[in-house]
């Protein structure tokens, strides 16, 4: 699958991208998956639950480490990518497509949530992890 909308990134390496109206896909960045290495397990967020910006919504575990996933904006979970229950490696192989984590309703528009666009995020990553 392909996610076509504009991507917004958080400093904690999550992204969201518009599907329709105020519905967005949510995932973790290519940089985040490459830092984690082989992903073995993900705790998906609860469908229907509302999360504040910065609130923990899940956990990703790789062979070597565990990392938390935070809500990049205030949001409500519409559906989760249940393929990840059996194939969490999709996050490694296709972090911006079939490795998305959930579909969410943004309760505050990403433009008003202090997120970065792709170029800004890429320079953020290269400056803070050089």
């Amino acid at each position, binding site marked *: 699958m392909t996610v076509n909308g504009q991507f917004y990134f958080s400093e904690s390496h999550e992204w969201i991208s518009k599907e329709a109206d105020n519905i967005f896909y949510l995932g973790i960045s290519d940089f985040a998956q490459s830092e984690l290495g*082989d992903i073995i397990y993900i705790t998906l967020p609860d469908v229907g639950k509302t999360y504040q910006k910065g609130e923990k919504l899940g956990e990703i575990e790789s*062979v*070597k480490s565990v990392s938390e996933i935070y809500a990049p904006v205030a949001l409500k979970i519409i559906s989760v990518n249940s393929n990840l229950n059996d194939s969490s490696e999709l996050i490694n192989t296709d972090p911006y497509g079939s490795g998305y984590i959930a579909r969410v309703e943004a309760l505050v528009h990403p433009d008003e949530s202090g997120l970065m666009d792709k170029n800004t995020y890429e320079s953020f990553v290269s400056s803070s992890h050089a």
Partner: protein
Amino acid sequence: METEINKKTPLYDEHIKLGAKIVPFAGFLMPLYYKSIIEEHLNVRNNSGLFDISHMGEIIIKGKDAGAFVDYVFTADVSKIEPDEIIYSLILNEKGGIIDDVTVFKFSENEFMAVVNAANTQKDFSWLHYQQSEFQKKGYDVDVSDVSEKIGLISVQGPKSRDIIYPLVDEVIKIGRCGFFDLKYKPKPVTELKHFEFSCVLFKDINVEALISRSGYTGEFGFEIFAPAKETKILWDYLLKHGYLSNLIPVGLGARDTLRFEAALPLYGHELDETINPYDAGLEKYLSGTKDFIGKAALKNVKSKEKRLIFFKLSGKQIPRHAQRILDENLKPIGCIASGTYSPSNKFPIGSAYISDTNVNPSSLKNFFIDIRGNFEKAEVVNPPFHKKGKST
């Protein structure tokens, strides 16, 4: 707080060129993985892998009384092995706690080499140096030196390892120098080496002479190659260039850990430390019954095991981690995780733990749980190893 400056092995620049994810480990900047721990792990089980383990320490013990010295500081019968053999041993403190686990190479009656864990090189050397002074005071002739920085150590592991090593080496069947080392016996042809034997080879084209042993830390057939530090890079590049001979790929410390753990090989800091005695760790077979060694007297007072090491697998997907709690069926804490990881060969999480509750009989432990960040994950005792030797399961 991390204030120490991490050292680099002679292959650091090669790891960067290969795109490795670098992490600090035991005071060194080491490759955790190049592409994927799982892919690298499975390639070692099915084909072969190339490891930089130059961070490990090498301590040379020589002198007229080196034999008596190694028998005193190491728990195994070290002096009795043949001068082309290796023996696994422990170093214990006076209380019987494990200072380190090592392999010891015998070069001659007067010269031995201990290969020690990177994290313990300084500690081991200080300990052995102190024991050397005590020996010298009594008039014995023994000298201990840390040569770790002069030696690069490369490991080739996996069922196809021989397909790359045999064609690339010429035998060096002569008494005398072997790269960094001095051999007082005629080495065997590499093709005749059995497990825990070593020899000397000359790598063709690049003209690098190195000590080579049939040993490793993966549970697979393999070799460890001790080359002079300044020739390690050329040897690494040479082996990678001929990688097609055995489907050889570079393998990082991540897979080194999952491989050693599937093979149930202990790791210092996890299964072993100074609060654990050899009985706890199930390593009593490495204690000599015929000679005295440091720690032996204290071990006489160890009536029964204080802790017992078990191995287990999980039915869930979450990975157990070092120091997490083991709970019995009533959720009462009975022990702690030593190692926990994901088994790429079996595709489920596995671990080891010390059961410290002496009322618990590990063999009859049926339902127990691991407290993984507040989730109680069901576990089951398993007899290791977790892999089938020579092929992936």
